[in-house]
């Protein structure tokens, strides 16, 4: 597999404008995040709401400038691209947004919304823009004669299909999907995910698929990265992560996924205690330590390690090999 995207130590700090934190670094929305995506594959980026998934996605799309770290596409650094290079990058990488309603301009027909990327990039496909748009609409399961309709005439799932067609218009190699199905009914979620899979099979596009729900990515992603408070806790092949989760946070998340069999044993369910710490003031050392189910069972010397040093690696835990 050839590597398409490589992210190293990507960091984004937002200044906080209220009182006490004015002088500090503010919110560490994303903190030294590293992962890679192979061509034609899907990386699932999972974590609770507010853990920095969208911020990561928006940095990859260059909608936000990273505070530090590197983003490489085909080995080429893109976090400093300007003007025409950036414009060229936007042909390679596109994005599907979370909210199907606000991701479409209410005053723009869906046809011209899908055509807009072609016009912005001054691309004239063979056969003309209109034909290309009709073809795209057909590919995402929209009726091409809905070209002149407006977003409010469509259901949430259909709007998301419009968003996917718009992202496909430039024939990108990577699409960042920021919780594309979270706002949809469960039955519609499956349809949209199937569509994304079909598109991947046909075009070989790679996805960074953001979700707050592990079960959504289980059958879809090739690799998974689990985020917590701006950091990646565990990163690996989907099957490995689901079958033998090694980070206590992943274990807790997986134990909370409802089992298909209602009679299944639920005694193994791990409940996370305590509140999610504020991202303006995360715990020192391991950010997960304040809620970790493993830590109370450690001897004091090893527990101190959690507070003192930041764990690294694909499994960001000091104790994962021995602590199980």
């Amino acid at each position, binding site marked *: 597999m050839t590597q398409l995207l490589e992210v190293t130590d990507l960091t984004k700090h937002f200044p906080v404008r209220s009182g006490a934190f004015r002088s500090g670094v503010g919110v560490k929305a994303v903190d030294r995040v590293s992962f890679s995506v192979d061509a034609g594959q899907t990386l699932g980026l999972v974590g609770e709401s507010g853990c920095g998934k969208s911020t990561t996605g*928006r940095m990859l*799309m260059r*909608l936000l400038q990273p505070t530090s770290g590197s983003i490489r596409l085909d080995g080429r650094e893109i976090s400093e691209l300007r003007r025409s290079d*950036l*414009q060229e990058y*936007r*042909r390679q990488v*596109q*994005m599907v*947004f*979370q*909210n*199907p*309603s*606000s*991701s*479409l*301009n*209410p*005053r*723009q027909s869906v046809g011209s*919304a899908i055509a*807009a*990327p072609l016009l*912005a*990039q001054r691309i004239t496909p063979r056969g003309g823009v209109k034909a290309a748009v009709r073809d795209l609409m057909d590919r995402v399961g*929209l*009726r091409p*004669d*809905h070209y*002149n*309709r*407006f*977003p*409010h*005439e*469509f*259901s*949430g799932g*259909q*709007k998301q299909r419009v*968003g996917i067609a*718009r992202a496909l*218009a*430039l024939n990108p190699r990577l699409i960042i999907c920021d919780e594309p199905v979270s706002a949809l*009914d469960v039955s519609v979620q499956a349809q949209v995910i199937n569509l994304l899979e079909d598109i991947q099979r046909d075009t070989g596009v790679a996805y960074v698929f953001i979700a707050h729900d592990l079960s959504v990515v289980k059958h879809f992603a090739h690799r998974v990265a689990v985020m917590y408070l701006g950091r990646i806790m565990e990163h690996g092949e989907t099957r490995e992560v689901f079958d033998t989760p090694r980070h206590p946070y992943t274990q807790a998340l997986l134990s909370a996924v409802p089992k298909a069999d209602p009679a299944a044993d639920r005694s193994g369910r791990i409940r996370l205690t305590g509140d999610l710490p504020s991202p303006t003031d995360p715990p020192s050392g391991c950010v997960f330590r304040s809620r970790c189910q493993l830590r109370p069972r450690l001897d004091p010397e090893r527990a101190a390690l959690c507070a003192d040093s930041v764990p690294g690696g694909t499994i960001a835990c000091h104790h994962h090999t021995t602590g199980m």
Partner: protein
Amino acid sequence: MLDPHVPPSRTPRADPSVPTAEQVATLSPPSATTPPAPSSAAEPAGARTLLGTAWLRIRRSRVAVGSLVVVALIVLFAILAPVLSAIEGQDPYTSLTGPDYLDGVDTPGLPLSYYRYPSTDHWLGLEPGLGRDIFARMAYGARISLVIALLSTMVSVFLGTVIGAAAGYFGGKVDMVISRVMDLFLAFPHLLLVLSLTPILQSRLGGTALDSGSLLPVASLVIILGFFGWAYLARVVRGQVLSLREQEFVEAARAYGASRRSIIFRQIIPNVMGVVLVYATMLIPTNITAEAALSFLGVGVKDPTPSWGQILNAAQAGNWYLSDPWFLAVPAGALVITVLAFNLLGDAVRDALDPKSSRH
């Protein structure tokens, strides 16, 4: 009623302090209740665009249609002033004086009773004192009054939209400076300022290309009213743009490489046009009233040029409203009807464009 700049009491529902992103985003009933497209295919394509829906709603409201008809009649009245006066056989400047027309004994200058009230010769009677035809002066006056109101509204709407959009889109320092200027404009005692500035402006414009016939007062009122009327709209537009800027469809446009220009003109401006249109229909009557007030107070349009405010001024100037109340009733009635019609129309436009309204 005299202050042109305090927004009309029934202002557009878009409260500048409340972000209207949601309003923009949820243009339709929640998606769950929106029928999937195949089942809505029975409707003719394009029939349910937002403006189309708005037009349908206007047509279904009796008040809206009524006010639209009245507004159209008033505009026609102004446009056709020369034609209507020709049919009547009168013009707005000829004075009919002497004992055949005006009383010379008890109340010198009061038209004889045949000429005081509507007749086949003079459809709205004669003006006391100068003996000019009131109908012709009202018709020509409507042109001046409406032109001033429309042009000054256009100036305000242009300034308000551009300045408000700039503040909202660029944010930061630009926004801070513009917002303070808006606050300043909104805090001014406008009437006093306009009253004192208009004569100054008129004397400045004197001798320039604008100083010919009735152009000078028209130009000065357009400039003054237009210049003082933009701040409220700018604040509304700023609020809208501020929330629009954060919408995902604007991010999407940035993501596929749309230019800043195309984001402003294709993505943002079309979404504020609704509120701008509503505000414009409500600013017109405000400016009609303001023109009348200024001319009535003697700093706007001056005799012999007619405008509705100037005619009101003439009615009170010689205390004619005591002996000839009809002469006061004509311009006052016309103003009330016009302002009412425009305000009702503005309400109707606002309701029709309101995405949250369920009336179809």
